[in-house]
């Protein structure tokens, strides 16, 4: 962010009106280490042994202003959890028509959430990571186009963004480390943001037609379609009810943030609704607040919750022919029950600003993945042992820098 230029050089640059302006390089880095207090489940890459992968990321960005309102931006991100394999998260051509309208095309960040745009820039938010109960969509970029309109309404700033694009990936890993092949077509959405001094209000709507295939579901669908004789038709009906092909997904989000400087409050609510299929609906929300004192210190507390809303009756067409204990009926019911992944967490943390561009954070997060007293679900955990009580604590230390 600090490209030093001398005054004469700057004058020349500005005078030439960006005909051949300078390329600006920026970057950010986070190094995080964490450990879980249980050996019966894992969260992200965290287990009961200290791990550095989940919250470590390095990114470099280049921005080249061209002439006549055009600019090119590229960002390459290397994440610890991917062995620091570099991927292009942003690569777009931007055209500023005037002070109000900007058009972009290429690889863009999907603006699902209030913190989407700087999801991995730890320095820009108080926590080690945005709560995964809310920030749960497994992809964060699309290939597509968008238009941004921004204007001042008195003392308020309004920004409207509309986008269209597509996301495709094989072996996409969910937060709970489940793999599937996804094709998210006709992904489109609109985002409205209002800002006034320290207050930010945001609402967005997104929709897409989703194909999602996993090995487990494919095996089940094949078994259903291969059922013999009189129950073949029923099996096929169940299979087409379950398959996630051309299913409309809708995502609603509202968020509010108030940050006058010496304290902050932020809350965000999201709802992901799938057309009937094996993919289930969920609501995720969080609220967080913190105080800043003596310039460099922030203490914060957050609560986050993920609630699944499971549909019923998927195995009904089979029931006239088969008992509930029949393996194929149990497999269908089991596939839906496995989607029950309710989770909540409390986070208490402390951030200390080491300099104007470096911070260190200490965070303790207490997870509860029970749907009711004594009924644990895996939540967003994976490699869960059968006897796990559904509770876990995670201690993380992270250092963030921007440059």
């Amino acid at each position: 962010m600090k490209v030093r230029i001398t005054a004469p050089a700057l004058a020349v640059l500005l005078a030439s009106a960006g005909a051949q302006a300078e390329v600006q390089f920026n970057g950010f880095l986070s190094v995080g280490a964490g450990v879980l207090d249980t050996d019966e489940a894992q969260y992200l890459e965290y287990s009961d042994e200290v791990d550095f992968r989940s919250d470590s990321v390095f990114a470099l960005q280049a921005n080249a202003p061209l002439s006549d309102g055009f600019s090119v931006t590229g960002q390459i991100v290397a994440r610890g959890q991917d062995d620091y394999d570099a991927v292009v998260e942003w690569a777009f051509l931007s055209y500023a028509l005037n002070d109000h309208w900007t058009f972009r095309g290429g690889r863009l960040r999907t603006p699902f959430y209030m913190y989407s745009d700087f999801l991995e820039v730890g320095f820009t938010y108080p926590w080690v990571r945005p709560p995964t109960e809310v920030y749960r969509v497994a992809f964060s970029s699309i290939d597509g186009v968008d238009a941004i309109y921004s204007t001042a309404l008195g003392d308020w700033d309004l920004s409207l963004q509309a986008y269209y694009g597509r996301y495709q990936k094989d072996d996409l890993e969910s937060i709970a480390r489940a793999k599937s092949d996804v094709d998210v077509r006709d992904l489109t959405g609109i985002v409205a943001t209002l800002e006034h001094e320290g207050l930010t209000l945001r609402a967005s709507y997104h929709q897409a037609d989703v194909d999602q295939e996993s090995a487990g579901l494919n095996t089940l669908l094949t078994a259903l379609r291969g059922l013999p004789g009189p129950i073949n038709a029923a099996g096929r009906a169940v299979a087409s009810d379950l398959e996630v092909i051309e299913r409309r997904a809708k995502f609603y989000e509202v968020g509010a943030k108030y940050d006058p400087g010496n304290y902050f409050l932020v809350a965000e609510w999201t709802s992901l609704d799938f057309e009937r299929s094996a993919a289930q609906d969920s609501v995720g929300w969080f609220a967080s607040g913190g105080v800043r004192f003596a310039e460099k210190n922030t203490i914060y507390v957050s609560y986050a919750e993920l609630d699944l809303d499971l549909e019923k009756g998927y195995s009904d067409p089979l029931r006239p022919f088969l008992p509930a204990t029949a393996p194929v009926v149990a497999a269908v019911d089991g596939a839906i029950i496995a989607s029950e992944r309710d989770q909540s967490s409390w986070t208490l943390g402390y951030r200390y600003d080491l300099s104007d561009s470096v911070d260190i954070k200490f965070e303790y997060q207490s997870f509860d993945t029970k749907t009711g007293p004594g009924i644990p679900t895996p939540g967003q955990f994976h490699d869960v042992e059968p006897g796990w009580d559904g509770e876990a604590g995670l201690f993380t230390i992270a250092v963030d820098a921007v440059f």
Partner: protein
Amino acid sequence: MKAMESCALASLLALSLAASADTVVVVHPSNGNALDQAAIARIFLGKAKSFPDGAQVVPINQKEGAPAREAFNTQYVQKNGNQLKAYWSQLVFTGKGTPPKEVDNDDEVKKLIAANPNMIGYVDAAKVDASVKVVGK
């Protein structure tokens, strides 16, 4: 002796505080726009891209550590260095904005502004001369 020293130190400190509190916002002498604190903050946060009269505005920052910069951020932008870095990171890493250009000191600010009616900057009040005009006071 000790008392005198600390006294001198105190007045020196007071002097430098007074000096840094007297940071003023300057534009080209031909620039007739009136700007209040909020309007100046909007320009330096990249939210306003033109002067009230419609002319394009180009804000000039001073580099980190320059005395006028901290005073200006506190007085006009009303954010500390860390908050500003976080704010600009949010815009930079989305390609939505770039922070104002930075120069080394008051003299460079004046030199640039004297040559360009679209520019706005800030300098120590004691450095103001006929090459620039004070606004927002």
